[in-house]
């Protein structure tokens, strides 16, 4: 015989937050008359210790098997009360929360009568649902003590060190042939003015010396399957064409006839098809760019070590890990066609300037006009290029401070050169960064404020001099500035392949294209896919300090399930009635997580740990064969009918 339903309902006053508007006495009275409701009480604070004890005592005294608490939003206290009923011996899913505060008393404070009527309806809806709830069991899965870190920039490297030092096996995967990411391309960093390469070196040394870390460069993620605890990853390791026998003699680099723009230097110079990405490159052996190599074989002829083989193929390697950290970084915005970029040689981006000023850059650190190789006498920066506009509404966070740093480096090295910064707002916030602005002003750098409605105009005069015309909004006048070198502080944008990677791992992106965190305030390091964490500029523009902070946090988050060795799986998931399933595969095509697939018998099967319980499959199942536990069609309909005073109750 089916167990008799015995529902207890608890209406919270929340001090006066609810009871000041809603007549809780009346609501309790009406609720007490609903079918299966054994007891309906109201109490001043249900979430307080005595409030919780009241529920526990009633569960025992009245033999309750379903509980409704009508108080604040379930987003506030649902888990509190689930634990309360669980402590009293009930299954934690035999509980329903009715939202009387946020969605009733607070919203209808001006109409207590109607608010009380609405409260009765809300209770009736909750009782309708709780009567249909079924106990659900949490399950556990084992978590492998291993991590995949996607992205070998400073963020990924730090994450790898953090986790490897805790004793976890760590796989660091970088799609380019070298480590270091964007930081490797920088000249000096803000605040300390250290060379970026000097920051990276000790980290890279620690990395290569750590037995828990395995590094894969030139490697892409081909497939990711599985779930928290047991991700199965297929790596595609691109061929380097040059093996460890190489003694770095450099003859191959001389004879290679193919020249292509050097992406490491953002096209400021050319490189060969066989090349060492940069002088501090780790690993430091040449690689061949298979897409541009003509397979002429000149390099093989001169290689005394027989280190080159042009017919290498990509290799696959499978790894399995418990957690994943996405540290894929960002792409700098390419301001093609803006402010003469792409049209005039002497208009460059701030990243190109970083390369130019770097010792290992195309000019060995000399500031020059690309058009004639001379030192520029007038340097102009334009800030907010590609940021804070209708296409990219966000502020790219670092460009102001980086421009201030670069302006001062130029001023110090070339005191004769006039440096001007055209800005909308100077947003050099963060420790020590506002001070940087003050120093730049004292150093004699000129600041001109422009408005986005009237941006600077760039033209080339007859004598081939570039001129910037700006309406200075503080002075209220047009100013013409000669620019021997014009530097555009470009935006940070999401990686071009972030959509592809996101869909592989089941991590969503915000409308601006960066990876989305599980909650902007409370879970900024987690994603909606359990076991996958975010670090660095893959989530949003950040400076190096912030990337390091976040990556230490993400590593700490990832180590929780790995240290425990197991995780609980939420039981609010889809379930298939195989008798009804018509094997059409609609659910499979609709599930964004690959959590429901046709099994060997053709019927749909749910991988519960991958399922997030969204219910898109259930709502589209042609045979209506899919149920979502805790949000079944019957439960939803019962709530809806109760709202209309139809159905039972």
């Amino acid at each position: 015989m089916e167990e008799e339903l015995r529902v207890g309902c608890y209406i919270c006053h929340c001090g006066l937050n609810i009871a000041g508007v809603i007549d809780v006495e009346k609501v309790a009275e009406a609720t007490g008359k609903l079918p299966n409701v054994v007891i309906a009480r109201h109490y001043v604070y249900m979430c307080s210790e005595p409030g919780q004890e009241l529920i526990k005592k009633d569960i025992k005294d009245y033999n309750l098997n379903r509980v409704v608490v009508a108080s604040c939003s379930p987003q506030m206290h649902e888990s509190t009360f689930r634990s309360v009923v669980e402590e009293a011996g009930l299954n934690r899913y035999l509980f329903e929360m009715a939202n009387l505060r946020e969605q009733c008393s607070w919203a209808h404070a001006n109409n207590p009568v109607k608010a009380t009527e609405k409260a009765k309806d809300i209770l009736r809806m909750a009782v309708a649902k709780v009567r249909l709830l079924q106990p659900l069991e949490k399950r556990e899965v084992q978590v492998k003590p291993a991590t995949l870190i996607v992205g070998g920039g400073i963020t990924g490297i730090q994450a790898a060190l953090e986790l490897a030092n805790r004793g976890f096996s760590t796989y660091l995967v970088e799609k380019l042939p070298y480590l270091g990411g964007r930081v490797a391309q920088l000249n000096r960093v803000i605040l300390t003015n250290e060379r970026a390469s000097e920051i990276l070196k000790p980290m890279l040394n620690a990395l290569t010396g750590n037995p828990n870390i395995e590094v894969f460069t030139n490697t892409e993620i081909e497939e990711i399957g599985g779930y928290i605890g047991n991700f199965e990853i297929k790596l595609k390791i691109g061929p380097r064409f040059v093996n460890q026998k190489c003694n770095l003699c450099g003859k191959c680099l001389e004879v290679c006839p193919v020249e292509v723009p050097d992406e490491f230097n953002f096209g400021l110079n050319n490189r060969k098809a066989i090349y060492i990405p940069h002088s501090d490159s780790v690993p430091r052996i040449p690689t061949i760019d298979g897409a541009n190599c003509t397979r002429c074989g000149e390099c093989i002829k001169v290689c005394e070590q027989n280190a080159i083989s042009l017919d290498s193929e990509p290799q696959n390697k499978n790894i399995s890990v418990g957690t994943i950290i996405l540290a894929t970084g960002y792409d700098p915005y390419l301001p093609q066609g803006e402010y003469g970029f792409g049209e005039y040689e002497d208009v460059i981006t701030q990243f190109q300037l970083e390369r130019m000023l770097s010792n290992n850059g195309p000019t060995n650190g000399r500031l020059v006009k690309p058009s004639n190789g001379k030192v520029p006498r007038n340097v102009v920066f334009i800030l907010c290029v590609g940021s804070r506009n209708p296409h990219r509404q966000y502020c790219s966070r670092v460009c102001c401070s980086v421009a201030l740093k670069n302006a001062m480096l130029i001023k110090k090295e070339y005191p004769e050169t006039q440096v001007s910064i055209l800005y909308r707002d100077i947003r050099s916030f963060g420790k020590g960064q506002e001070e940087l602005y003050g120093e730049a002003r004292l150093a004699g750098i000129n600041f001109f404020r422009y408005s986005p409605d009237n941006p600077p105009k760039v033209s080339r005069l007859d004598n081939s001099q570039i001129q910037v015309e700006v309406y200075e909004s503080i002075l209220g006048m047009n100013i013409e500035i000669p620019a021997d070198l014009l530097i555009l502080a470009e935006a940070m944008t999401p990686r071009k392949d972030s959509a592809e990677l996101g869909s592989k791992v089941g991590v969503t992106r915000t409308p601006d294209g960066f990876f989305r965190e599980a909650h902007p305030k409370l879970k900024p390091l987690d994603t909606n896919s359990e076991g996958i964490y975010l670090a660095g500029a893959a989530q949003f523009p950040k400076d190096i300090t912030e990337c390091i902070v976040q990556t230490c946090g993400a590593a700490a988050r990832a180590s929780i399930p790995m240290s425990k060795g197991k995780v609980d799986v939420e039981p609010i998931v889809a379930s298939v009635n195989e008798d009804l399933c018509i094997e059409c595969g609609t659910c499979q095509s609709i599930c964004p997580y690959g959590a429901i697939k046709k099994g060997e018998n053709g019927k749909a099967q749910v991988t519960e740990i991958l399922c997030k319980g969204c219910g898109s499959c259930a709502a589209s199942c042609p045979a209506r064969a899919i149920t979502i536990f805790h949000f079944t069609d019957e439960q939803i309909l019962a709530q809806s009918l109760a709202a209309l005073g139809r159905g039972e109750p």
Partner: protein
Amino acid sequence: MSYEPRIVGFLCNWCAYSAADLAGMSRISYPPTIRIVRLMCSGRIDPVIIVDTLANGADGVLIAGCLPGDCHYVEGNLNAEVRIKILKNLIAKTGLEPERLRLEWIPASGGTLFAEVVKDFTNQLTSLGPSPLAGENPDKNILELLAVVRDTVADVRLRELVGKKRQITEKGNVYGEVISKEEFEKRLTDYIDDEFDRHKILRMVKERSLSVRELSERLNLSPQRVLRHIAAMRRKNLVAVERIEGVSPLYTALEV
């Protein structure tokens, strides 16, 4: 007593439901006309449940999900959008105002927006007047047609087509052809119109057997069109000839 509409709102936990919470936290008041059912995603809502809600006298139904591109579950909201659009077209055939069903995107930060949507929907429903299906004497005709809509949105073939719409128009069908959205919409609309008529016919011949001419008169459709439907339904073993009266065969529904 003046009429106050009754709205049932199916809200996504992550955005619209949070927005409703935020409206309360910010003490933004809105009419007490909405009763909220919390779902994890707007994509969870089965059109059959919406039809049942309307049939039971809701003056309005609000489905509210995350902004496109902002869905907590990647694209559940887009699945909801496809279904709601089809359902609205079907509801329009019943005589019930399709405006009674409303889909909105409300981000979690949209407390004010949520309140405005409820206000606006309440005003709209107030000027539409009570649902003809509310109260003691619901409009039988509309109720019957709504039952046909229910049959149509519960139809296996249709649900499969709708469910795979985004796959077919974005990734390609089983033959690898990608059908353009416009082409698909057109074919789908035709198919839905046919399905709606066929479910209507099925309900009629379940009551008593009818000839093509009788059906054509009752449905206000050309006899050729009815005959086409009958032929299709015979192929699917949904109807059969029961007997021949004079020269006209009478059709009856087969038990499935």
